[in-house]
């Protein structure tokens, strides 16, 4: 039963909230492993769908699910030690909410019904809010407040968007049950006007969650205040889930012949996000905010790639996978740094290479990866997106894309260089630890591996994903 994939973590999450704290971490790890196993089984096609009306196994969903599950496994390993060392191990809130978070995100990946998708995404907001508030500081409180309020507003708008899409079915007087599968089938008959309005609201709604500018405002606050494993999950998995929502509606739009409209909107949001991220990455004083803005940038790249379509679409999907891997690795490394130095201020940090050589390796490698350099996969995805942009005749957008990327690079390179290589005397509070070192390495290795060799099942999945809306593109 495919639904097990989200039911299992939800149940264990609820259980964890009730059991004594020392069991919680064990449950977290065991569930992570089981979840990964289930995901693999789903990929092997061993899990049939039970509630076909609401859930289905779509290639794009499965990709996101796989990434999410893999990242979660790494993060779970990481947080074994991390939570202990930050002194947050007493509560059951963290493991419980992490599991619920995983459950709701898995639900997003499997949802086929717009409203189910919407419910799942809304649920992610609610279960992840306690994670952001974990530190109980005033800043954490503020971040949580902004996160919940802005995301709720955004999500409410997404619901409105879903209603409008439903309305477009009604007005066209088609008798189908509401699901993306059926929507895709009848796309051409839908009322274009309401579909467009619906798309606008969905993009704004889920875009809020995904972190597209100008609705991104909660993201840097939340990511910087959440404990690092949670930030890693937020950035590496949650944003993808929100993207999935937009992507599915974009698919409907494309099939309805409105691909250009929705594509242009996505390109616009993508470029704006990249630019805004660039503005704040330059001279950013806080490294977790830096990573958060970098997520905004990368979401912008993904949106841009999807908007461009064709070649860039392949790049966008690849980018989503690699960004998740690398960014979560970066957040985990940032967690090590935060533990070691107890500060998030970039100017107070220098000489990672001296104090934390192993963390330096993963941190800087992550930077190399996120900057789009080989051997990490973002290199290929960005190449694809750029080539795609020219190929589909968007030279101006491509130039803006390049400029924004350069802006981000200029900011990020300076900060990463100074943090890693700068000279500064430090007192090391917490030493490096194998359990906190290996997960970021594994995540990076995964990205390298996928850059060198991609399993054909994954390739087929990506191709199946983009086939639907990349149809008119030829080499």
């Amino acid at each position, binding site marked *: 039963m495919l639904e097990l994939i989200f039911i299992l973590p939800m149940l264990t999450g609820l259980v964890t909230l009730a059991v004594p704290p020392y069991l919680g971490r064990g449950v977290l790890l065991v569930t992570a492993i089981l979840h990964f196993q289930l995901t693999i089984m789903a990929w092997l096609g061993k899990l049939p769908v039970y509630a076909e009306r609401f859930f289905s196994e779509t290639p794009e969903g499965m990709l996101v699910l796989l990434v999410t599950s893999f990242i979660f496994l790494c993060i779970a390993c990481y947080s074994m030690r991390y939570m202990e060392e930050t002194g947050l191990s007493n509560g059951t809130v963290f493991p419980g909410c992490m599991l619920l978070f995983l459950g709701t995100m898995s639900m997003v990946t499997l949802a086929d019904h717009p409203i189910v998708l919407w419910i799942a995404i809304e649920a992610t907001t609610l279960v992840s*809010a306690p994670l952001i508030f974990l530190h109980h500081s*005033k800043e954490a409180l503020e971040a949580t407040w902004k996160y919940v309020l802005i995301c709720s507003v955004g*999500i409410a708008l997404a619901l409105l968007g879903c209603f409008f899409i439903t309305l477009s079915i009604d007005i066209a007087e088609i008798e189908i049950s509401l699901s993306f599968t059926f929507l895709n089938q009848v796309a051409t008959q839908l009322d274009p006007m309401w579909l467009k309005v619906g798309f606008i609201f969905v993009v704004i709604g889920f875009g809020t969650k995904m972190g597209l500018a100008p609705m991104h405002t909660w993201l840097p606050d939340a990511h910087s205040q959440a404990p690092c494993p949670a930030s890693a999950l937020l950035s590496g998995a949650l944003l993808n889930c929100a993207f999935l929502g937009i992507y599915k509606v974009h698919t409907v739009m494309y099939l309805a012949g409105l691909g250009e409209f929705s594509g242009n909107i996505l390109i616009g949001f993508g470029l704006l996000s990249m630019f805004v991220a660039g503005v704040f990455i330059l001279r*950013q004083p806080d490294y977790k905010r830096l990573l958060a803005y970098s997520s905004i940038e990368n979401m912008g790249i993904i949106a841009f790639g999807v908007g461009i379509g064709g070649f860039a679409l392949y790049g966008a999907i690849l980018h989503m996978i690699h960004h998740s891997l690398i960014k979560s690795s970066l957040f985990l490394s940032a967690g090590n740094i935060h533990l070691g130095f107890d500060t998030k201020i970039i100017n107070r940090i220098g000489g990672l290479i001296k104090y934390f050589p192993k963390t330096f390796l993963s941190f800087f490698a992550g930077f190399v990866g996120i900057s789009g350099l080989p051997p990490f996969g973002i290199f290929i995805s960005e190449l694809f997106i750029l080539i795609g942009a020219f190929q589909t005749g968007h030279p101006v957008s491509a130039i803006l894309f390049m400029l924004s990327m350069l802006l981000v690079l200029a900011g990020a390179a300076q900060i990463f260089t100074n943090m890693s290589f700068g000279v500064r005397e430090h007192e090391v509070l917490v030493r490096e630890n194998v359990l906190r070192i290996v997960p970021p390495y594994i995540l990076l290795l995964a990205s390298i591996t996928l850059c060198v060799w991609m399993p054909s099942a994954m390739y087929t999945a990506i191709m199946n994903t983009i086939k639907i809306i990349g149809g008119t593109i030829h080499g």
Partner: protein
Amino acid sequence: MKNINDMIMVVILLSVLLSLASSRLITLIKIMAVQGFLVSLLPLLLEHHSSMGSGGLIFFQVMILTKGILIPVLLYVALKRIAIQREIEPIIGYHASLFAGLIIILLSVFITDRLHLAVPSGQELILTTAITTMSAGFFLMMGRKKAITQVIGYLMLENGIFLIGTALIKHFHTVYMVEFGLLLDLLVGVMVMGIILHNINHAFDDIDTDLLNRLKD
């Protein structure tokens, strides 16, 4: 039937205007209770919902209970537990707010008029009401300083969306999913926001959002 509907909608519009003009939180919560009640009542009286089964009826009753009673009570409790020192504290003044509310209604009418052809016939007023409610919700969220007013604004936004969701859309393909989702969202949202409100009050001794201004670049 049509008359009752229209009357309800006019009352909803009135409640929107009142909420914009009210200067006391207690009043605001009361207005919200009325508005929630009316908004949940409206779908029951609509024509294309006349064939609703018993399950649907129960669902709408639950809806009325939640929106009309449970949430206002929750808010009231929250209000009592946090010692409010000052009242609503508008960023935009009451008169201006009222004026803005009128403009919002006008604009909603105008938009509805523009969309005339695309909407199922005879439901223009619902659309107007929904748009007004949503816009006013946004207005409250933006125009007031207190965090609790933002929650109320959010509720108003939800009311507007609910109106569109239940009133405009044919029922069969949603299978109560919409209602269920809304309910969940509303409940949990308010709960979570309530908890955060409580915490904010605890941490800052006030729920003024000016205090929530530390995280910036």
